[in-house]
């Protein structure tokens, strides 16, 4: 296989996300790239259009708190058992970010439309909700295959992120990335123009060489760059590799209630050495 993927440092990886880019991020529980998020904050990224796939938490809250995002498209932002996402909530209330509320399968449908090069994908449900009422980029048509007289059907426009960014368990030297059962990471990468990945480790085996590992692998053809970042999801937990750092998360939830507290957290938490 031709080697087209390149290996970068975390800060080099963060430099691959231009200001103003649309940036797809996975759920906190399934590959949130926290070390890369800190690198984005360090480089002073701004005007990002965040696409949560389909929800987010700490990753989105930190980027919003740091002033890196102008728009958030999401189905939910929460710190889970540590409560609401304080900087997100404050920014929405202040109108400091534009919010595009969605519902989980609508975000997948938009990404899958992009994955398939389609202008849109249909989705059942949603009609009659205020989620739909406030989305002027969504359309309802009368299903042309309807057996009934009328059958309103939602169409979601394609979501094609400029960059997808996530954390994964491992990559090989060719840039193939093990994603296991996290199939939504494949959808993100297929849909995005470029995909940047941080990994716990780079392994010497070719992940595509055996069928068992290939089945859970995102091939390098979709991967623009990889950065090795051990404990790259910290302070979140990551799969069965490490649990969440509950003290850190509680600390964050407490400090981030105020802009000052958040700034203090950032100063401590985004120094290059932290989390590596």
């Amino acid at each position, binding site marked *: 296989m031709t080697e087209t993927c390149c290996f970068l440092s975390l800060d080099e990886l963060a430099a691959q996300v231009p200001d103003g880019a649309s940036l797809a991020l996975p*759920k906190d*529980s*399934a590959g949130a790239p926290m070390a890369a998020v800190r690198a984005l904050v360090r480089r002073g990224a701004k005007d990002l259009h965040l696409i949560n796939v*389909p*929800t987010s938490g700490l990753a989105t809250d930190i980027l919003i708190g740091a002033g890196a995002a102008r728009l958030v498209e*999401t*189905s*939910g*932002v*929460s710190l*889970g*058992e540590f409560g*609401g*996402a304080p900087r*997100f*909530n404050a920014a*929405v*209330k*202040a*109108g400091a970010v*534009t*919010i595009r*509320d*969605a*519902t*989980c*399968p*609508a975000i*997948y449908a938009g990404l*899958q439309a992009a994955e398939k090069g389609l202008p849109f994908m249909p*989705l*059942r*449900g*949603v*009609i*009659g*909700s*205020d*989620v*739909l*009422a*406030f989305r002027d980029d969504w359309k309802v048509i009368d299903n042309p295959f309807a057996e*009934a*007289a*009328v*059958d*309103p*059907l939602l169409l979601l426009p394609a979501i094609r992120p400029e960059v997808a960014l996530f954390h994964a368990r491992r990559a090989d030297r060719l840039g193939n990335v093990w994603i296991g*059962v*996290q*199939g*939504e*990471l*494949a*959808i993100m990468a297929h849909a995005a123009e470029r995909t940047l990945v941080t990994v716990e480790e780079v392994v010497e085996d070719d992940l595509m060489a055996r069928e068992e590992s290939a089945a859970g692998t995102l091939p390098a053809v979709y991967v623009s760059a990889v950065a090795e970042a051990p404990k790259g999801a910290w302070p979140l937990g990551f*799969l*069965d590799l490490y649990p969440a750092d509950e003290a850190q998360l509680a600390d964050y939830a407490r400090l981030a209630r105020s802009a000052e507290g958040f700034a203090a957290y950032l100063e401590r938490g985004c120094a290059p050495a932290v989390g590596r």
Partner: protein
Amino acid sequence: MPLDCRPEELLIAAIARLLRGCRNIAVGVSSPIPGSAALLARAESETPLRVELLESLDGNSFTRGSVELFDRAAQGRIDAFFLGGGQIDGQANINLVGTGDYPRTAVRWPGSFGSAYLYFLVPRVILFREEHSRRVLVPKVDFVSAPGVSAPEVYRRGGPCALITGKALFRFDRDRRRFRLESLHPGHDLADVLETTGFDFDHDAAPAATAGPDAATLEMIRGPVAREIAKAYPKFAARVFPRA
């Protein structure tokens, strides 16, 4: 004679009864009580019953990513699901987004998650919210994350079947588009529920009491259910089932 049980155990037993006859139950994130109820329903079911705990790494059978939950619901492979709400109104509309004028809501909650879709596709959606107050149970939600009822031309294979709070169990009548109080949990009375519910609902003059778990069920809850739910919700399990 009712057994002495914790309020969580009563809720678990009551929800499990609502799940009878299901073959596939999915439980979303941050849902230890519904999760326990689903596990109890599975333990008590005479026919095969699958439970998918979305919270848990190995507590579900999704191998193509979390999009598979939504596809499975559309395929008719999910019979029951749970939703909550920062606000819930008398037409079973739920609000997971916030209070006040959208988008700059005075209070912002996380967001609608999959509710705007699953509420239409899953036959038996159970609304669960422990807090029973006029703050939560409102005449009309400020933002409809997912509507409780739909116009007849709207494709809808599922919807609300019940609402269970810390005080009472309501059934939702889809034809009348109203809740009916089914039972009051022990220790709560109708006057209090009328006082603390912001929407109108139907009720008997003397509503029944929500049945608690019998001895065998309680043993099941405190034994295998407690051990299983602890894998996904260790803190909840440690608090509610200290001896499991």
